[in-house]
């Protein structure tokens, strides 16, 4: 049962991921990304990381993809630019894909983890309490740094997207 669920979610996720890459229309691409993330969240749940699945949906689907869509609309960039394949680009793409697949194969074939079944009991990703314990003891410093990171990002967004003020030199 779990196998079937995994297989179907995995297939769905992969398909959506491919959709992101292949979609002509940017909006469709963003929707594919959203679905793909949902798939990953599903896998998280299968891995008992409920909290993380929730976070993923919340942060990614709720914020990130929404932001993407918002920007796409803002810039009017959804009008799907046609795929402009040139022979060289196509060739390079095929080669790249081949190389990546080879790399994947090697990882999967030679890099077997030989892991047994999942360790019993839920990980920290499953409950908010355990998670918070970790975050506010061992990983307190990174959390603090993350605060600064977010502050910087916020300032950056403000600075960058403010309309050029009067008299600011433009080219």
């Amino acid at each position: 049962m779990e196998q079937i669920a995994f297989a179907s979610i995995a297939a769905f996720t992969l398909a959506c991921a491919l959709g992101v890459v292949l979609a002509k229309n940017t909006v469709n691409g963003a929707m594919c990304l959203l679905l793909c993330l949902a798939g990953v969240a599903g896998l998280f749940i299968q891995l008992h990381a409920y909290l993380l699945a929730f976070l993923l949906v919340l942060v990614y689907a709720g914020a990130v993809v929404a932001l993407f869509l918002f920007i796409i609309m803002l810039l009017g960039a959804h009008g799907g630019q046609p795929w402009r394949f040139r022979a060289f680009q196509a060739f390079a793409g095929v080669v790249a894909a081949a190389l990546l697949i080879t790399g994947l194969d090697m990882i999967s074939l030679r890099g077997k983890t030989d892991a047994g079944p999942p360790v019993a009991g839920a990980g920290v990703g499953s409950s908010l309490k355990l998670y918070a314990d970790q975050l506010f003891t061992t990983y307190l410093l990174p959390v603090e740094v993350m605060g600064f990171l977010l502050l910087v990002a916020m300032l950056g967004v403000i600075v960058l997207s403010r309309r050029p003020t009067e008299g600011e030199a433009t080219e």
Partner: protein
Amino acid sequence: MSPSLDSYVLLSAALFAIGFLGVLVRRNTLVIYMCLELMLVASTLALVAFSRFNGTEAGDVFVFFILTVAAAEVAVGLAIIVALFRARQTVQVDELDLLKK
């Protein structure tokens, strides 16, 4: 029987590769950026799987940081793309070649 760790890792690697491929072949900055996000998500998937199967904790905590970083990065990245669009009226990377040689 539950799916093996290897299958999760393989799936994550595949997602990662697809993301990379997207960065390679697409010319639309926004799509490229989405593909980059896809790569990050692929990493989190492997991380969670490893944590689960190995019974270690750090991975799960790490995911939190990755998600936060990704959000911040997206915000900044999109701001840059917007600013660039304002300056150049395009989101196609092929048209961005003021800096070369």
